[in-house]
């Protein structure tokens, strides 16, 4: 059995001359939880839509379970892209049963079990149209997992959930991954949340893959960064790039620089900066988190 369940090779989606996804590569290993992170408009949803068959691929190829016959393997996967897809005139159970019929799920007891599992066990005959955003989100997840898929593709699954709901979803996904070896590809803006359970991250910006990194690698990389504050930030960045060859840094609020490379070369860095005639106001080795690391990769106005 192939260890790679999803392989995206130079996946490209263009609308006219605009490429929203540009030669995106990704390999998702069985049992892993991949966090697909990137700013709005980075192409995350488009990638998921291409995987789901909801939008055509301009260029590149995809493989599911080592097979290029995507339609054959899509039944082994479940997708929840953008908002949950529900019939607002049906109850939660009826919505589940509808998906059950589509996927040929015979067990009736399973519907109640899943509803209980996602916290919708007591909604009774209430129609989905009267559900809160969080309840719809839970039902969407229930509809995605009812068929016990081998791969779950979730686009912003915790949108609209209260903190308790977010924790529930996190626990649910972790449980699915650990107990049933379900592979999960998830996108979310809540990076702190992703960092709680993702095993791998794919950072995307302007439709291109910036980096794939495992949680372990990220932990090591984020363990330290050097925060530098000088009297001339632009000149300092020039020194970092030209004299030290440092590329992985981020200017934060135009006041200080977070350096993610050569974090164990404190002496060299500080000496090079002072040798360049700059005055160091702050020079501290600090830890970073996923959010800071992400911002260091994709930039952004808050960086």
């Amino acid at each position, binding site marked *: 059995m192939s260890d790679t369940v999803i392989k995206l090779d130079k996946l490209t989606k263009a609308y006219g001359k605009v490429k929203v996804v540009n030669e995106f590569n990704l390999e998702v290993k069985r049992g892993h939880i991949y966090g697909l992170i990137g700013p709005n408009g980075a192409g995350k949803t488009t990638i998921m839509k291409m995987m*789901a068959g909801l939008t*055509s691929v301009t260029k590149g190829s995809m493989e599911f379970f080592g097979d290029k016959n995507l339609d054959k393997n899509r039944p082994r996967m479940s997708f929840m892209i953008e908002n949950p897809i529900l019939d607002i005139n049906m109850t939660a159970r009826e919505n589940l*049963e*509808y998906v059950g019929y589509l996927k040929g799920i015979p067990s009736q007891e399973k519907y109640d079990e899943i509803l209980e599992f996602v916290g919708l066990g007591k909604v009774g005959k209430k129609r989905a149209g009267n559900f809160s955003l969080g309840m719809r989100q839970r039902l969407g997840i229930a509809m995605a997992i009812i068929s016990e898929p081998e791969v779950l593709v979730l686009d912003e699954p915790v949108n609209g959930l209260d903190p308790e709901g977010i924790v529930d979803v996190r626990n649910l996904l972790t449980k699915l991954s650990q107990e049933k070896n379900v592979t999960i590809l998830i996108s979310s803006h809540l990076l702190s949340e992703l960092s709680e359970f993702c095993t791998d991250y794919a950072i995307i910006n302007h439709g291109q893959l910036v980096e794939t990194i495992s949680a372990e690698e990220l932990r090591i990389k984020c363990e330290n960064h050097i925060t530098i504050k000088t009297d001339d930030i632009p000149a300092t960045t020039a020194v970092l790039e030209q004299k030290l060859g440092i590329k992985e840094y981020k200017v934060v609020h135009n006041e200080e620089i977070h350096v993610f490379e050569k974090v164990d070369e404190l002496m060299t860095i500080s000496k090079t900066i002072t040798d360049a005639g700059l005055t160091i106001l702050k020079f501290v080795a600090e830890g970073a988190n996923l959010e800071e690391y992400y911002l260091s990769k994709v930039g952004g106005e808050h960086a």
Partner: protein
Amino acid sequence: MLKLAKADIYRFFKSGIFSKILILLSCLLPIVMFLISLTFKHNDAGLDDFLIESQMPLLMIVMLAIPTIFAVFVGTSYNSRLAYYEIMDGNKPLKIVVTKIISLGLLLSTIVYVPFAILCGIVGGVNGFGNMENPVLFFVLTYVIFAHIIIATLLYSMIARNLILASFIPYIRMGFLDLLVTMFGEVYFLADGKDVPAFFDVFIYNQMGKFTSGVYSNSFVVYTILSAVIEIAVLASIAVMVYRKKKFK
């Protein structure tokens, strides 16, 4: 295919569409009966006279009310994106389209056809079929016309994939284009004292006008069946192509 059909039928009955159709039919029936009573004065007339005298109200009801219901049903599944489950589950476009024609198309055609058939059956049973040469052919042809309207509407909705568009296209197609072509044929040819060419029988409006006569020429039967098969085949092909383009919101 069976799974798709089961899911469609399940949603049809559970999402309230079926009950809405029942309500609509039960509201329309007294109106139809009232309109019929205005024009139909011979209580002992056979089915052929009954149809001729009451054809307009029936035509209006069938033409305008029925397509809208189905357009709404199919259109909502695209607006709510519920139809996307079928695609995300790896079903081929051809399979999806054919399943919709078989399950929803034929099911809905039958649901709508049954009240009409019962009404005609009662009149025919009580007063006889008059000059109608072949009552069985009458029922077959009317079912073909009903199925043609409904399946075409279903496919138009699948092509439009939008509730509002899906609701309007059947009106434009049935109530406007068909009517105009038929009127053109009548004005252009009848005004010159000629018969309207048999070819015009491919248009449903013309078919509905003629099936009430109870006397069917061979060309009428052929054109009625052929027009249904050709339009459904063309629309189904377009629907498959539209699905293959994968431009889902």
